[in-house]
């Protein structure tokens, strides 16, 4: 009996506190909006036009903090946090938040150990690393008790995709879903991704713009149905895909995913490309996108050509260059001790990190100019006339033997020591092309 009374009492208290909580929240929310409409009217207006506003989701729903959170602070009577993390968004968008945590994007903030971050810190300096690297990759958010919102100005503002948040979550939803409109159309457009995916080392934006896909998109942007709830290429729009169409959005047979790597069969990032784990499934995933608009032979044909370019890059340039680099290091030929303090290291770096990626990315997204002129052409020029001469300068027997052998005996490189007439004859007869037959015979 006593227990029952206690239970009913507890239930009653719970209901009352729940109701008063909702009531209280409403009033707090109204207060936030009142001042911020005046103090930051653009922000208010963005929110006002958002789907959040239509659903009565306002400031406090995302910015409310719990006692004990490192970045929580009292602001006009409410305990709030400036930083909204995937964990906060995940209160409602739980599937998306989970997918993000598993994605490669979420690891982007862990770059401090990478060569990229090393280079930015030594050759550049912290200010450039903060505004450069960490702006895209995400900062490790630091707490500064003397800062008005408890966030160190070195790591706030930051909306890098792999931001390491004080609550332990990784990422920042607004890297793509720009606050405070959180427009679905904005996130679906290529501009959302090309905040970071552009430039000499990964020109996805430029490749897309060059490709037929990009071309069609910019022509038919008004027909892209970008605001639609369901957005499947070939069904809800059909003129062109955007970045998200292929990498994230729902397809005829797959749901939308925020784990961006799920449709990638290769990693085109490292010096030598390798297939990703479970790559066949991932390629099959991507093919479900292609099939929205293309026949199977068309899509498979693309992969046939693309795979060959990756193999060509790997076999002809990446592997020999990497081998030469290893020999240089093994024989202690580098004059200066620090990484990147020798010219050859920069040359090798640009060979794979800039030009080599351009070649691979160009092929992956059907950008002819990036595959050849910005890609393979630059790789070849760099390999033959900067990298090899730089390595030969050391006068090391082992290195020189490797290079001599490569140029003399590898049919892919022996053109260097063959007469032009003979080479042209081989091209005309198809003998030259036979050298590269194996590139098309991969898995």
């Amino acid at each position, binding site marked *: 009996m006593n227990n029952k009374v206690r239970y009913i009492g507890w239930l009653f208290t719970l209901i009352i506190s729940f109701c008063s909580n909702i009531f209280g929240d409403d009033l*707090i929310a*109204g*207060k936030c909006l*009142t001042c911020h*409409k005046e103090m930051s009217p653009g922000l208010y207006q963005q929110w006002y036009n958002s789907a959040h*506003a*239509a659903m009565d989701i306002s400031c406090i729903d995302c910015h409310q903090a719990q006692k004990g959170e490192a970045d929580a602070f009292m602001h006009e009577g409410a305990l709030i946090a400036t930083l909204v993390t995937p964990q906060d968004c995940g209160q409602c968008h739980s599937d998306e938040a989970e997918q993000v945590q598993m994605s490669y994007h979420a690891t982007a903030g862990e770059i401090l150990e990478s060569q990229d971050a090393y280079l930015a810190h030594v050759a550049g300096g912290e200010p450039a690393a903060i505004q450069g690297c960490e702006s895209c990759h995400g900062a490790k958010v630091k707490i500064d008790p003397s800062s008005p919102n408890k966030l160190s100005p070195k790591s706030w503002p930051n909306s890098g995709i792999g931001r390491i948040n004080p609550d332990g979550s990784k990422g920042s939803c607004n890297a793509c879903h720009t606050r405070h409109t959180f427009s679905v159309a904005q996130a679906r457009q290529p501009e959302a991704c090309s905040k970071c995916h552009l430039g000499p080392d990964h020109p996805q934006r430029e490749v897309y713009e060059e490709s037929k896909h990009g071309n069609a998109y910019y022509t038919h942007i008004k027909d892209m149905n970008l605001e639609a709830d369901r957005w499947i290429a070939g069904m809800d729009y059909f003129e062109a895909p955007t970045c998200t169409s292929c990498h994230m959005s729902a397809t005829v047979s797959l749901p939308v995913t925020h784990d961006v790597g799920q449709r990638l069969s290769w990693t085109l990032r490292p010096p030598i490309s390798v297939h990703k784990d479970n790559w066949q499934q991932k390629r099959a995933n991507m093919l479900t996108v292609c099939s929205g608009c293309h026949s199977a032979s068309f899509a498979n044909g693309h992969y046939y050509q693309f795979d060959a370019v990756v193999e060509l890059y790997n076999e002809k340039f990446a592997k020999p260059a990497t081998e030469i680099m290893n020999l240089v290091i093994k024989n202690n030929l580098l004059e200066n001790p620090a990484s990147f303090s020798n010219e050859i290291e920069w040359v090798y770096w640009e060979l794979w990190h800039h030009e080599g990626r351009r070649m691979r990315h160009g092929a992956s997204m059907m950008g002819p100019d990036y595959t050849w002129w910005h890609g393979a052409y630059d790789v070849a020029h760099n390999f033959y006339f900067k990298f090899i001469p730089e390595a030969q300068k050391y006068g090391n027997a082992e290195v020189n033997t490797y290079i001599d052998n490569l140029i003399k005996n590898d049919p892919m490189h022996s053109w260097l020591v063959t007469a032009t007439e003979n080479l042209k004859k081989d091209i005309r007869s198809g003998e030259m092309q036979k050298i590269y037959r194996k590139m098309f015979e991969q898995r």
Partner: protein
Amino acid sequence: MFNKYLSFIRRVSVTGLGKGGVILTTSSFITLVILELARMLGLVTNAYVGLVTYLLFPFLFVVGLLLIPLGWYQLRKKTGLSTRRLLEEKFGPDETRGSLTGSRLFRFITLLTVINVFFLVAISTQMLGFMDSAYFCGTACHSVMNPEWVTYQQSPHARVRCVQCHVGEGAEALIDSKLNGLWQIISVTFNLYERPIPTPVRQLRPARETCEKCHWPEKFYGSRLMTRYNYQSDEESSLLYTTLNLKIDAGKAGAKAGIHWHIGQENEVRYTSVGDRREMMLRVEARRPDGRYHRYYNRNATAHSAEDVVERSMDCVDCHNRATHIYEEPERAVDDRIKRGLLDLSLPYLKREALAAITRNYTDSTEAYDGIAQSLRNFYMRNYPELEREKTTIIDSAVMVLRDIYSRNIHRSMNIGWDTYASHIGHKGNTGCFRCHNPALVDSAGAAISYDCTLCHSILADNHKEPFQFLEPAETGDRDYQRHRYLKDEFLNSFKK
């Protein structure tokens, strides 16, 4: 007696200089008496006459008096004779017989001197009185003071004399002000004054001494409804309201303290700011009931030299810095004239075009007067040619009203344009209240002085077609539902004890 006076006058006039003096004194005296009589009888009402009556003629009168002995001095030099000899020669032995102080002439001169002194005292009193009048301050240095004079006449304090705020009471203040006036005469004569003249923040009498004569802090202020009429820039110049309930209570008699808490008798707010502009706060402190001060420091403040830094206790003028010499903002001025019915809303795009006409960059008022007329007429001629023909008189009267706005607020000769003098009442950008109430001013615990909107006013309409937007029922599904509910609730609760 009159004959005797005339013969005295004839005889006392020696040499050209002396004669001039006599003529000057006599004519000034006569004119002065006539003018003063005319003023007393109400025949002359033009206040500008005061400048002549009380300043020019008394001055000429004294100069004339001084010239008379100068004439005598000249004569003595020329003839080489003694004063007594000359007097005897001029006035005859009857008049000069006896000792110097016992002679009839001496007694007569003494009598006249006493009359002169009486006259001068009387006229000086009148003069000081006149110089205390707003009219004198506003017009004596016409070009310099004109902006202040124009704005003052249209202000809530138009019936309070300048000196009541600008000059203190007692002899010391009087002398101070006259010495200051002397410098002003010099600076006007030799063109040394600043344009625009700086706001006299240091010379002003303490607000506690002046403002509080009428606006005493024990007065119960309560709260006050304020509605702003915001005409839009669309074709109809449609009207939207912003209604605020200003919480202006001083917090006496158990009432909740509002904005006038700052000057409540048990409270004191001190601040340190940069220069006389009082805009960039370095430190703000408020006295707590236990007598200790709670301090806030500006975390964004940059270093300033000691002479740039001014510390003072807050009083009326720190917010009401433009209580009298009120320069309008152009948009508010147009809204105000529309609201008062001076601008006719039957003209399309009136608000937009009126604002454009008065805010163009004119170099002087002639150009502005032409420009305003051209701007408005051309717009209607080009876009509404028929209406322009039909409503010529309405457009013309709009032009007159706009010119009036311009001439009230813009004074190019004194370098006064729109926005020359910032007003600290309310807030616009980071001015006014937001000088202290902002996130940068924090105490040692990092807490800022509150800058919550509803701290000082409830919001009953926010640029909305209903003047009491938020008192209407809040509708679920409205994107502003939460704000609506909060503001209604806040207003209703603000009256609870």
